[in-house]
């Protein structure tokens, strides 16, 4: 959306090039490039489109012998639906947490000069990579255990939330920095208090960034296996990422019929969330570290 003025102008300008050959080569080049990219990005996904509806899915892509029996089998197993529900709770909870805590914090960090602010952000960003890693699993587990949050969704939300917050703050602050300050001053003169300004002015102005971050956070939670597996106990709390790994036969052979069907069902919500969010709020990053 933001790019379209450039696009229009440049096509308009190309008429003045008066270099038909170069123009023609450009078109060819673009077409080849787009075709190649399209092939590269669609090829792996084909399996996800066909295999779930195949009576006997294999690892190769083939036109299916159409059936929806795989889904029927899948939904007969009680864990599939509840797993999706649990994933939704975890993803929603984490997204809400990081959006609220992240926008409050990034706003404060963007507007008020705190000594060592930038350093703090980088340190947090770097540390997030340890904790989302496996080496910190033991401390994390013991901590969560001490806090009596084992087998509680909240524990998972807090751990993943803490792991994603630095990145969220890092990116959101960028958005906050880009909001014209006069918006807030104006609201402030009308008597709006800081929280109200944040809610009425800053959040709506930064919403395409918030939306992008929300999708990013949802994707992070949606795919995380290790944290929920280790922190949750009750099978009825298992999210889809954990359940995905249980579709194996007695001997540990992947059950392709269930995996194919579940992979589709499992991927669909994030795709829908993305679609909804990008339609409604736009989806973009500013980017650009400023000094």
């Amino acid at each position, binding site marked *: 959306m933001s790019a379209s003025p450039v696009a229009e102008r440049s096509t308009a300008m190309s008429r003045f090039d008066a270099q038909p050959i170069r123009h023609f080569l450009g078109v060819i080049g673009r077409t080849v490039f787009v075709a190649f990219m399209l092939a590269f990005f669609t090829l792996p996904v084909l399996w996800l489109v066909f295999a779930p509806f195949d009576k006997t899915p294999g690892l190769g892509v083939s036109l299916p012998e159409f059936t929806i029996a795989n889904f029927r089998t899948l939904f007969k197993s009680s864990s599939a639906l509840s797993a999706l529900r649990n994933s939704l709770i975890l993803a929603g909870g984490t997204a809400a947490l990081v959006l609220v805590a992240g926008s409050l914090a990034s706003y404060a960090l963007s507007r008020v000069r705190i000594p060592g602010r930038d350093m703090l952000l980088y340190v947090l960003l770097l540390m997030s990579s340890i904790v989302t890693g496996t080496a910190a699993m033991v401390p994390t587990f013991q901590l969560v255990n001490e806090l009596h949050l084992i087998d509680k969704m909240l524990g998972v939300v807090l751990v993943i939330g803490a792991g994603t917050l630095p990145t969220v703050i890092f990116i959101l602050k960028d958005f906050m920095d880009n909001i*014209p300050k006069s918006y807030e001053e104006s609201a402030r*003169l009308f008597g709006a208090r800081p929280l109200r300004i944040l809610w009425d002015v800053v959040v709506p102005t930064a919403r395409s960034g918030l939306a992008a971050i929300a999708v990013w956070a949802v994707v992070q939670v949606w795919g995380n296996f290790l944290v929920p597996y280790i922190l949750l106990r009750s099978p009825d709390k298992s999210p889809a990422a954990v359940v995905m790994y249980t579709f194996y036969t007695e001997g540990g052979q992947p059950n392709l019929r269930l995996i194919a069907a579940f992979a589709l069902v499992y991927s669909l919500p994030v795709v829908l969330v993305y679609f909804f969010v990008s339609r409604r709020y736009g989806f973009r990053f500013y980017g650009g570290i400023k000094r």
Partner: protein
Amino acid sequence: MASIRTVKLTKEYPGGVKGVDDLTLDIVDGEFFALLGPSGSGKTTLLRTIAGLESVTAGQLFIGSRDVTQLDPGRRNVAMVFQDYALFPHMSTADNIAYPLKVKKVHKAQRYATAEETADALSLQGLLGRRPSQLSGGQQQRVALARAVASNPDVFLFDEPLSNLDARLRLEARTFLKQLQRRLGVTTVFVTHDQAEALALADRIAIMDKGRIQQLGTPRDVFRAPANTFVAAFIGSVPMTLIPGTLAGGRFAFGEERLELPDEAATTAAAMPDGTAVTYGARPEYISMSSDSRPGAIAGPVQVVEHLGASLLVSVAFGDQLVQAVVDEDHEPEIGATVYLLPNPRRALLFDAEGTRMADDAPAEAGG
């Protein structure tokens, strides 16, 4: 409605830079008051200090009878129109105008009724549903005004609200703004770097430089009787010609040239010893040009001729000095031709070595 008073107001930035320096000022209730100055002069800082957007380092600030020095900006009951209008991009015109009322928790129906009313008054009918991005610059400016009006403030603060408009629109908006202010009668402080705008709009003008007021007065005062060379150079659509020189035998001397002393300072200057350094100032509008020699006129070759529409601006060289005169369009001189310039002694000014205007009955207008 309220007056504004600052008492020894100082705003010091970290690092010791003073945005506003020990400033005492009274703005009368209902007055249209302009703060004029080049960028960095402290005019915007003063405006933002009045708004409460900048904290005060020392001194006091009153709006009406209230001491608002430490008061939160939201409680000062002032409204500000920003240079970029600060319209909320995610809100429609109606929402934007109604926003101050929303903050004040006015009932929804009531605030949209007020918004509509205000919009009507500012000729914004039919635009209520649009987003700012769908409005023209002039419309945006009026929405910003409407939003300020709708909040029913004691004081309007305008931060260069016309600078983002193109030249023609700016003239229209100027008239509109003046009308609106007359009608509402709300005390208005207006920041601008455009002296013409200030002269056209303001009841009184404060010309600022380096955090201090250089001169405070009516447009007529500051134009006719600038307190010092800074004001003299700043005011006027063509800058005043300022010629440094000395007093010599009851006349003003620069190089080989001699000019009669301005009337208003003639007595004072005549009493001063020869050789005293002074600056002679004359607005190009008050310098007449002829191709024939005249008594008291100085002669030099034409360097540049600029068309100003109905008149011409002619620059004439005297040694290393350039003196300008505004002449009738019918009398366009040849480049290089020798012409004779004669300042009108009733309108010419004399400044002392510090740049302060000398006058026989001083201090007349300054500080008014």
